[in-house]
């Protein structure tokens, strides 16, 4: 993840409002071109990179990151041409969206509301394209609206995700998947669809893949944790407690490679959770969080934390592998040559 800015920009360009994550498939195909990994997309929209270990009956480890971002869905076209919207996703403050440009298919417009932006609710926004009549509008009910808010690189290691949210963690998954580690278990990297609508994609993945271990990655509000102090190993989320042994493994993995990490048990209700679905599928569960300031607006994170998250995830997979095999995990061929 050497050039985070350009990677984030490429990811941002995928336009993956909840329910329309198909753009991510091309991004992943370009990032992971090797045919040895199976890349599939299910009917819900999850993109899964499957890295088999080649051993029948091997354990299954699932890692998820959100594939979607906040946006709107068209609910109605007013006779005067206003495109009425419903907010697609939670955890975002709506007032700062007032006046931003947005795109709906062929339509480009500005997000407005008749109400005071500070009081506007999830059904109070509309897209003004300048049309004066519904007949001018090509958009239809059910179309998705993407907000024009590119990420911003600041000084001192800081990045503003500007609404990309947990989608930024897709970079961690592609980074780790690219390493092509030869492990003694199957790994499924799931870029989970409709995460902002209640972790729907992750829940479906848990049910269909039935993993032995499931680790979820997402963005979490800082407060009890600090931006720049490392990824957060959560002992619990809004839906329940993570598995203690996985929490301990994550800590040991971080310590083994000498990266800073934080620990928290704070239950953030604004962050969707698939924990109960993972547990219902019989999986042990882990939760990794990227701390974020101004979580509901500009979403400021640390570039170093993002890189450390990838490193921690890789180290954890190796740690689990060594726990199962009792030995050293062979390094990928590329690293050996170097």
């Amino acid at each position: 993840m050497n050039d985070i800015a350009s990677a984030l920009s490429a990811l941002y360009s995928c336009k993956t409002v909840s329910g329309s994550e198909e753009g991510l498939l091309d991004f992943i195909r370009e990032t992971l071109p090797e045919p040895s990994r199976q890349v599939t997309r299910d009917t819900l929209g999850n993109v899964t990179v499957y890295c088999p270990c080649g051993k029948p009956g091997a354990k299954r480890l699932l890692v998820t990151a959100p594939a979607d971002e906040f946006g709107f869905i068209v609910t109605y076209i007013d006779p005067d041409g206003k495109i009425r919207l419903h907010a697609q996703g939670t955890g975002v403050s709506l007032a700062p969206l007032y006046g931003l440009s947005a795109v709906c298919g062929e339509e480009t417009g500005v997000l407005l509301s008749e109400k005071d932006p500070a009081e506007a609710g999830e059904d109070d926004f509309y897209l003004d394209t300048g049309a004066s009549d519904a007949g001018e509008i090509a958009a239809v009910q059910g179309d998705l609206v993407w907000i024009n808010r590119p990420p911003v690189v600041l000084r001192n290691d800081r990045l503003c995700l500007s609404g990309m949210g947990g989608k930024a963690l897709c970079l961690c998954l592609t980074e780790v998947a690219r390493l092509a580690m030869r492990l003694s278990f199957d790994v499924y990297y799931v870029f989970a669809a409709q995460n902002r609508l209640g972790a729907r994609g992750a829940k479906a993945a848990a049910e269909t893949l039935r993993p032995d271990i499931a680790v979820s990655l997402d963005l979490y509000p800082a407060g009890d944790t600090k931006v720049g102090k490392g990824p957060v190993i959560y002992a619990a989320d809004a839906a329940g407690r993570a598995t203690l042994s996985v929490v301990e493994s994550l800590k040991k993995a971080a310590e083994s490679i000498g990266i800073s990490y934080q620990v928290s048990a704070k239950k953030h209700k604004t962050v969707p959770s698939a924990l109960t679905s993972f547990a219902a599928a019989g999986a042990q569960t882990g939760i990794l969080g990227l701390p974020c300031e101004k979580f509901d607006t500009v979403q400021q994170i640390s570039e170093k934390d993002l890189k450390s998250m990838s490193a921690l995830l890789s180290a954890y997979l190796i740690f689990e592998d060594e726990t199962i095999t009792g030995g050293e995990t062979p390094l990928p061929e590329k690293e050996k040559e170097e």
Partner: protein
Amino acid sequence: MNRLNLLKALCEAPGVSGFEEPVLSLIEQEIAPFCHGLFYDRAGNLIAFRKGNQESGGCVLYSCHADEVGFVITHIEEDGRLRFEAIGMDPKVFTGRKVLIGENKIPGLIAVKPAHLVKKEERDQIPSAEDMYIDIGATCRREAEELGVFAQSAVFDSPFRPMGGHTVVSKALDDRVGCFLLCQLLMSERPYDAWFAFCVGEELGLRGSPAVARQVKPDLCINVECTTAGDLCGVEGRTRTCVLGEGAVLPFMDGASLYTPSLYRAARKLAQEQNIPVQTKTLIAGGTDAGAYQRSAGCAVLGLAVPTRYIHSANSLMDLRDMEAAEKLLRKLDERLPSLIQLVKGGEHHE
């Protein structure tokens, strides 16, 4: 049974969430001669399989829910009056209503304080369900106990009746209309294999459908429901959500599901080609079992609904023409299952 008589029987049968057995028995009786497989799962869902004579290319599930909103008797007071828990309703809608309790349909009345006794400060307040009780005319606890009402369900005493225009009024249109449409489809001549699920516990939060999803593992689910029509007096524009008399409803999203966009578009196109009146919902509200199927089975989902006013109350109102539009569209979709399956399984999948 005659069509409307079946709808009437389904609506009038008791079937509060957790107590669905009477209505499921009625459905079982109607559909059994047409099924190649019929069973109750451990959750209590009634699941049927009707074989066709052609392959559709995938596993298709038609789903509806058999339960209705209602009450459960939780306590008998010393003076014979009954305390209850309400399922799926706002207390405003059931004050002063007649109910029928348990297998023996003991009549009762949800008591409301007469206006003469209401204090000034109480006038603008709606009592909570905890403060209400059902009066069955018993004078003491023993008398009520002997009637066997404790821990029984209670349904509204609201018979099915035709009304003005093409409308009908009844309790439990949500979702006995769905049950009716699925019965009609299952009992007709149809080409392709399909599963039919009459789910329990939907009004308690989509309780029964996840079990169906895990057993049937569908590729495609078409969920048939009633949906709230907000075309009330004084409500205009998009806040009407959907409108009685303007056709069947094809929702693109609700609180529990984002319906598979390709299926939604295909269904709309089919309706237009076949001149079947359809509309969509203009407000995102409510949720259906489709959400559970998406999450539990990862399957593609399509919603089809009949607009209904005043759902989750003692009496709901529906236009029969909307139900007929939904039935016609359902049959047309059923004839095209292979192309719907191809839509779902084909496209951007699998490298």
